[in-house]
């Protein structure tokens, strides 16, 4: 099949050079990856600015946010409670659905899968193009919600019914409707992508690329795609039901018409918990890719790494109830979800120990991607450990809906997913754009992010234990929270500096894009197949032949090899397979 596709593509290659076909409606997986990356980074700016607005209000309640008076003319830049609710709702919605998913699953999925399994493109290139444009349309719909009467959705990213189901409860009308429509469309785009990833990985691996010779990042994206395929339809159904409740007079979730509010929570979290692993698995894969390269060592426990991800994928379906311990769901069911939640911590522990095992005895090179991968591991450890507090149901009674939860989710999705995304960007940038990023700016960006990330998010554990609820507009309205207000000020300084540090990344990214040093074929002396293609790889990735695979992806420092790396496609001595080079 791939041979046939390749011939067909070669015949077309000369006609595919128009600007629109190359940069806009491209079917090339690498261009689609770049499009997802640019979309995700653009949305990250919006999501980040919303977060800073939230932090400003929490530190200095009801004072004008600098620069915001241009937009909020009526209040002179002061956030009103409804605007504040909108800001945190849209911060989370944008970061989860339009930053992390497009970058990790969209950009790295598209870029890495074909190149690392030795395929010339995705199985369905046109569907792949559609997947991006449908997702981009969803992004536009989501952003349009900021401009409608009544403002954007303000019921939290979890949009619990009936608050979200009945317009007069929030005063938000079309904002919430557009939120539903945008997520529905995004779900369709994501389904197109996931079908493509699964088909490509199953059918289009290069000769010799057995499943257990696949790089772990491909494993992680394969499992992520399966979760996406099965979880997103639950969300799309739920948001459709919510939209029908709001516009057509159905009553799935509002009790006034016989609906059940907890049904929304069951549907949302049945999607929502696999979603958390959709956000973190690709980052785990990226870290598993980078740690061996810069430790110059095989990954420790390759099979344990692959199987623990499979275990996480299965278990992710039966832990979702731990979001609902105090929701009114049967407490006996809560006990059952405690057991599964404790169990899912085990594969995460296995992965952490294997990452440490990979470092042990290595020859560790502190490059920028390596620093971000190490940052990922250490922050993921904190995020994983804080999860144990919530798994214990009695403790969860107290910390549910407090800042402890906010701390936990940020250690997992920022310390985890976003650190993983940065690691991946610094690592694959040379292959993706053919130029090297500036290491000095990269180091500064890492240290700024690492320090100010912890500065901003670690104290959230403390004020959460102190009882501060999430999603409150003004902590100073509560007597029992006033004594810890200095932490809110402290964290906001951290958040502002965390945001400022990102400017280093933006400068580095665009400067390197146009003026960076030209990247060699294999700048990191890495083993996997993408580094055998030119930087950046041309359409169809390789010349006359796709590489043949002779070994696993992590053969570093083999005592029998001349160099400290042994590419997957390098023929064993005496095999006489020269033509594959």
């Amino acid at each position, binding site marked *: 099949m791939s041979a046939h596709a390749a011939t067909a593509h070669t015949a077309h290659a000369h006609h595919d050079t128009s600007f629109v076909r190359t940069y806009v409606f491209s079917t090339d997986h690498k261009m689609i990856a770049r499009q997802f990356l640019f979309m995700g980074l653009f949305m990250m700016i919006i999501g980040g600015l919303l977060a800073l607005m939230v932090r400003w209000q929490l530190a200095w309640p009801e004072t004008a946010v600098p620069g915001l008076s241009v937009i909020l003319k009526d209040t002179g830049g002061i956030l009103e*409670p*409804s605007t504040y*609710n909108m800001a945190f709702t849209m911060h989370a919605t944008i970061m989860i659905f339009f930053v992390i998913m497009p970058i990790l699953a969209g950009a790295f999925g598209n870029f890495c899968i074909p190149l690392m399994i030795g395929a010339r493109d995705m199985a369905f290139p046109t569907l792949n193009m559609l997947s991006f444009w449908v997702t981009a349309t969803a992004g536009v719909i989501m952003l349009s919600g900021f401009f409608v009467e009544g403002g954007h959705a*303000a*019921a939290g990213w979890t949009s*619990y019914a009936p*608050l979200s189901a009945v317009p007069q*409860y*929030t*005063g938000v009308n079309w904002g919430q409707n557009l939120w539903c429509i945008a997520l529905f469309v995004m779900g369709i785009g994501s389904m197109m992508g996931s079908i493509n990833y699964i088909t490509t990985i199953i059918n289009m691996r290069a000769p010799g690329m057995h499943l257990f010779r696949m790089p772990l990042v491909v494993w992680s994206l394969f499992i992520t795609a399966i979760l996406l395929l099965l979880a997103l339809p639950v969300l799309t159904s739920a948001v459709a039901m919510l939209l029908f409740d709001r516009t057509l007079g159905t009553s799935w979730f509002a*009790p*006034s018409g016989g609906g059940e*509010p907890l049904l929304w929570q069951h549907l949302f979290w049945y999607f929502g918990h696999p979603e958390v692993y959709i956000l973190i698995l690709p980052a785990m894969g990226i870290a598993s890719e980078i740690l061996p390269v810069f430790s*110059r*060592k095989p990954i*420790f*426990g390759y099979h*344990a790494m692959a199987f623990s991800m499979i275990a996480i994928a299965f278990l992710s379906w039966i832990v979702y109830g731990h979001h609902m311990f*105090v929701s009114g769901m049967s*407490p006996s069911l*809560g*006990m059952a979800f*405690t057991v599964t939640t*404790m*169990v899912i911590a*085990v594969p995460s*522990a*296995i992965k952490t*120990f*294997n990452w*440490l*095992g990979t470092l*042990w*005895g290595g*020859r*560790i090179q502190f490059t920028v991607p390596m620093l971000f991968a*190490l940052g990922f591991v250490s922050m993921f*450890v*904190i995020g994983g*450990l804080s999860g*144990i507090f919530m798994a*214990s*149901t*009695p*403790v969860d009674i*107290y910390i*549910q*809906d407090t800042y402890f939860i906010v701390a936990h989710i940020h250690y997992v999705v920022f310390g985890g997913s976003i650190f993983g995304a940065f690691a991946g960007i610094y690592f694959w940038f040379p292959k993706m754009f053919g130029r090297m990023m500036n290491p000095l700016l990269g180091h500064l960006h890492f240290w700024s992010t690492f320090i100010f990330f912890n500065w901003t998010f670690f104290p959230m554990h403390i*004020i959460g*234990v102190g009882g501060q*609820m*999430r*999603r409150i*507009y*003004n902590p100073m*309205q509560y*007597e*029992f929270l006033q004594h810890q207000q200095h932490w809110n000020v402290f964290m906001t300084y951290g958040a502002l500096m965390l945001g400022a540090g990102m400017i280093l990344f933006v400068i580095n990214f665009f400067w390197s894009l146009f003026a960076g040093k030209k990247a060699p074929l294999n700048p990191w002396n890495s083993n996997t197949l993408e580094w055998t293609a030119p930087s950046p790889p041309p359409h169809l990735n390789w010349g006359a032949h796709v590489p043949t695979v002779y070994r696993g992806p992590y053969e*570093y420092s083999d*005592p029998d090899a001349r160099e400290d790396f042994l590419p997957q496609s390098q023929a064993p001595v005496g095999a006489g397979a020269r033509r594959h080079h």
Partner: protein
Amino acid sequence: MLDWWLPENVSTFGRDIDWLFHLIYAITGVTFVLVAAAMIAFLIMYRDRPGRRARYTHGNTTLEIVWTIVPALILVVLTALSAPAWSKIKMTRPPSDFVVDVTAKQFNWQVKHPNSDKVFLDEMHVPVNKVIHVDLKSQDVIHSFFVPQFRVKQDAVPGRSIIAWFEVTKPGKYEWPCAELCGFGHSGMRGWIYVHSAEDYKKWAAENLTAETGGGAKK
């Protein structure tokens, strides 16, 4: 610092929760220190230096088994230790003849005390050292009954009536926020729970509950 930032606990089952909290603090704290120490040690010991070559190893089955079993055992024990408290707080409850009816709405707690139809807004009075049942309802969206110092939290779900309970061991005035986002007035939706000695409660009830039934504080 001694309480690790937890507010003072004044309820009976709060002790069980705090004990588990401190246990998990200890377990996760030790784990974090060990993992971080190992990581930092490896990063220093195995940093790239001229002339040395990395160890060529693909893993170790014994280690894999050990680091699967040990966390699993710790988590099993933790589950077993969590179960009794959960059962005590949420799955069963001690009987009580003191039932307070709480109906949440945007953005108030509406409270009816036993043997009275009078509705109090954001104000509840209960006796100390007595099991209190709260019959929790909501008339619009989901709210959450949260009293940090009682270590109690229970969502109020429209269309349902859910019984939460607590027993306070120290008289006083305790803040009672709503913990679930319930709209633009969520922040600031809070009441006060006054815990009186038995005699003081009787006195308060005589003065405030029987006088004008169904009138007064109702808005």
